């Protein structure tokens, strides 16, 4: 009962303050602005995506030559509706990738767009909550204890029979509500705006994604709010607590996450991509000269031109080729392992800051993070394989047709009627080509991906609140 009184008092205090008005204003303006801008951007992307698909489909259907299948096909990544909230790792909302048989993927060049976009980060939900809202959370909590101690209200309050834990909990709940209320309103409005302006339907995965993003923001902001309360109950003056908090904010939110990858890069350096390519090229060149030498030796030894007729020799060469392939894959593999280890350690070091946990979890929940990216590339590779199978199948049909028209001398004679008939049977039409099908991760998968970060955020919450509690218990009321 007492708790409710304290919460009510705290809430009323906050609601009548200027900072509450500022929080409301900033929340509404920034979230709505970002939502309107990003949703319109998404709508543009929708039409680009549809246009690209038509272009690429037409491009395929206009082909008549079997050989053109080996040139590959261009596919488009489906749009992710959650990109209206979280831009994530990928640069653009749409992307066309050229797939060639044999696992060759050509991604579009990243630098061939508007260069200004690369200079500034985009203001999406992650940026707004991670940086702007965290600052506002501190602005709401920095003086909750120290200012009351300064003005003497706290002394008066404690002279009643209120236990300290109730006071602190009341302060936390009241302050947190006054932070989350404007945020929630702005969030709901921005979701409504994006639903109105785009053809996104609020269904299953999208709705769950939005909800989980909101929950994540609640968790993260609670941790930051507790941090503010902790610093406030460590200091005697409100001006000291805001100074300390801003500095802590700069270190935790701005400095640590941004420097961590570079720091880890110093400790776990990577060879450059070019040097790996050079190494592979050198291996290939060495092997080639060795093969040529072997063939020459074999020719001299057997004094025959056609050394390939010798089964044992051919097997040996093939085994060596296989070996070379494996060696080269090993080089690639070790490079990949180094990259993964650097990325992993960067993530670990950067997680000293709760912002990292929030950001990475939000990326994954919006299926715009690293896990999604890996799946995307894997699906493209799988598609490349099925494209290769399709190409080989078509090639075979064409060769069979040619063989059936071969005369005794081995010459191919195809009359134009034959060709017409063949065309009409549509055996060389490519409309039955495998389509590229890609599904974003299911919600359960995404959730399991972020469980560690959620746990970390919960730990930050508990830690900061406990620290606040401990220092408030020992807080000196008389100055």
């Amino acid at each position, binding site marked *: 009962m007492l708790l409710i009184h304290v919460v009510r008092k705290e809430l009323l205090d906050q609601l009548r303050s*200027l900072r509450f008005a*500022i929080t409301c*204003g*900033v929340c509404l303006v*920034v979230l709505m*602005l*970002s939502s309107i*801008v990003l949703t*319109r*951007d998404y709508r*543009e992307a929708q039409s*680009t995506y549809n*246009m690209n698909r038509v*272009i690429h489909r037409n491009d395929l259907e206009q082909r008549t030559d079997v050989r053109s299948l080996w040139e590959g096909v261009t596919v488009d990544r489906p749009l992710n509706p959650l990109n209206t909230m979280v831009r994530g*790792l990928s640069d653009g909302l*749409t992307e*066309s990738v050229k797939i060639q048989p044999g*696992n060759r*993927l*050509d991604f*579009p*060049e*990243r*630098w*061939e*767009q*508007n*260069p*200004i*976009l*690369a*200079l500034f*980060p*985009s203001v999406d939900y992650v940026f707004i909550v991670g940086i*702007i809202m965290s*600052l506002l959370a501190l602005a709401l909590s920095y003086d909750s204890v120290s200012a009351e101690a300064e003005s003497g209200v706290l002394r008066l309050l404690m002279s009643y029979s209120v236990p300290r834990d109730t006071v602190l909990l009341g302060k936390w709940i009241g302050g947190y509500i006054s932070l989350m209320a404007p945020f929630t309103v702005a969030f709901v409005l921005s979701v409504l705006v994006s639903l109105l302006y785009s053809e996104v339907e609020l269904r299953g995965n999208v709705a769950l994604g939005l909800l989980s993003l909101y929950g994540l923001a609640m968790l993260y902001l609670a941790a930051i709010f507790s941090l503010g309360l902790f610093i406030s109950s460590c200091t005697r003056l*409100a001006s*000291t607590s*805001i100074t*300390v908090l*801003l*500095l802590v904010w*700069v*270190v935790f939110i701005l*400095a640590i996450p941004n*420097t961590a990858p570079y*720091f*880890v*890069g110093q400790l776990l350096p990577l060879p450059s*991509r070019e040097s790996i390519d050079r190494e592979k090229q050198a291996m290939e060149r060495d092997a080639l000269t060795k093969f040529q030498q072997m063939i020459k030796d074999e020719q001299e030894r057997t004094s025959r031109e056609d050394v390939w007729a010798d089964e044992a020799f051919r097997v040996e060469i093939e085994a060596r080729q296989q070996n070379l392939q494996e060696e080269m894959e090993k080089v*690639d593999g070790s490079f*990949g392992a180094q*990259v993964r280890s650097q*990325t992993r350690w*960067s993530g670990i070091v*950067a997680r000293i800051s709760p912002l990292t946990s929030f950001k990475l979890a939000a*990326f994954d929940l919006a299926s715009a993070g690293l896990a999604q*990216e*890996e799946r995307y*590339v894997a699906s493209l590779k799988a598609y490349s394989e099925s494209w290769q199978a399709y190409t080989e199948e078509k090639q075979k049909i064409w060769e069979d047709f040619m063989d059936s028209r071969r005369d005794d001398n081995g010459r191919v004679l195809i009359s134009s009627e034959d060709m017409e008939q063949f065309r009409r049977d549509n055996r060389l039409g490519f409309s039955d080509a495998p389509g590229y099908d890609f599904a974003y991760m299911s919600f359960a998968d995404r959730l399991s991906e972020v469980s560690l970060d959620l746990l970390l955020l919960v730990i930050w919450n508990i830690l900061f609140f406990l620290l606040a509690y401990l220092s408030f218990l020992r807080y000196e009321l008389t100055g």
Partner: protein
Amino acid sequence: MLILQIRKEIVYNVLSFRFAATYVLLFLLVLVSMFLMGNEHRTRMEHYTRTEAAQRNRLEELSKMPDASQQYREVNQEAFLGVRQPEGMSVLARGLESSLPTQVSSRQHWALVSSDDRLARNVMLDIFQTPDLAYVVNVVLSLLALLFVFDSVCGEKERGTLKVLLSNSVPRDSVLLGKWVGGYLSIATPFAVAVLGGFLYLSLSGAIQFDSEGVGRFAAITAVSFLHIAAFFSLGLFISTATHRASTALLMSLMVWICWILVVPNVAPVVARLAAPVASRQVIDAELRAIDREADLLHQAIRKRKVYGDEKESERIDKEAEHSKKKLEQFYEDRLTRQVTLGKNLARLSPSASYLFAVTRIAGTGSTQFDNFRAAVYRFQEEHSEYQRSFWDSNLVEWGSGGPTVKRDDWFDAADVPQFAMYQENFNEAVAAALFDILLLAVITVLFFMLSFAFFLRYDIT
């Protein structure tokens, strides 16, 4: 009188807790930033020299080949590399440096990213922003400047010292000027010391080879940084004279900071993209292909009419197709330029963008680097196709059943192979180009100081 004022302000600031905390933070941040970025640059330079050396070796290897025909075949098939030298000043202002490729091939029209590259990088570098000096100054120092100055007028009023001060015969203008100069010095001095330390580290550790131009660029970037801090200091002073309570001033400062540093410049490019849309590259490419196809159909039509074709007519068709392709490319470029300009101008509503544009321009890592790079790649590839064509035109090669035979043995000279070269503005040009943004920063500084003067003259001190 003014000197006394300045002294009082400095002493007050230096003795405060926030000075100590800020000083430590500032020093650490600037040094850590220069240390990390400097070392990163050194690694990039090492990669660059190694790639460059490998490319030179390859050329030597080619020129030493004994069999001229074999040599011709190899040269004909070779994809020569154009290697881009990392920009030294990217240590201070990274800009677009890391989003441009470090090497391009002479063959493919656009250098392509292979599948391994997609994941073969530390994605954490993309998720977070680059902690270069420009970032530290733009985001952290602007905040610290506001933190230093938000209560310089209204705080003194609350404490009552302003009343006492003005009861003496001090004119208000010298009080305000004293506050500005004293406060500014007490934040600019630690920054100057930190930057000096960073400069010493960079030059002594050899992370950057400084020539006189490099020192000039470094100094210019530092000077613009001082101006940026001054702009935010004036803004803070204005807010302080416009409010009567320190807590209000603090909140207002934070709000303006959020809008100016975090929101306006970052929203501007996306707004520009919506206001001045550009068709996607794929659409343009598809239209280019359509033009080609149309020309093909026309050619076929001619061949149907006349067995040996009509040379004049074909030439005309080719020319027309070429012309419309060029026009389309030009159209695309124009639209893109318009979008970029609009984005820049919108972003300039915030001094933070002016600062970033000025600094990246001086460092040579701004959007001009992008344009220069694109031009350089185009030129490099053109020169190479020209180079290949020259062998055809000079009747150097005879094609037989056993492949090409070269008539002259000494036909290949490694020095003739076109090299990748990027145009770089010299220091004076860069500063001149950045002058507009520098001027904007100066105007904002003066404007806010004047506003705070106007408000302080009418300030109610009781």
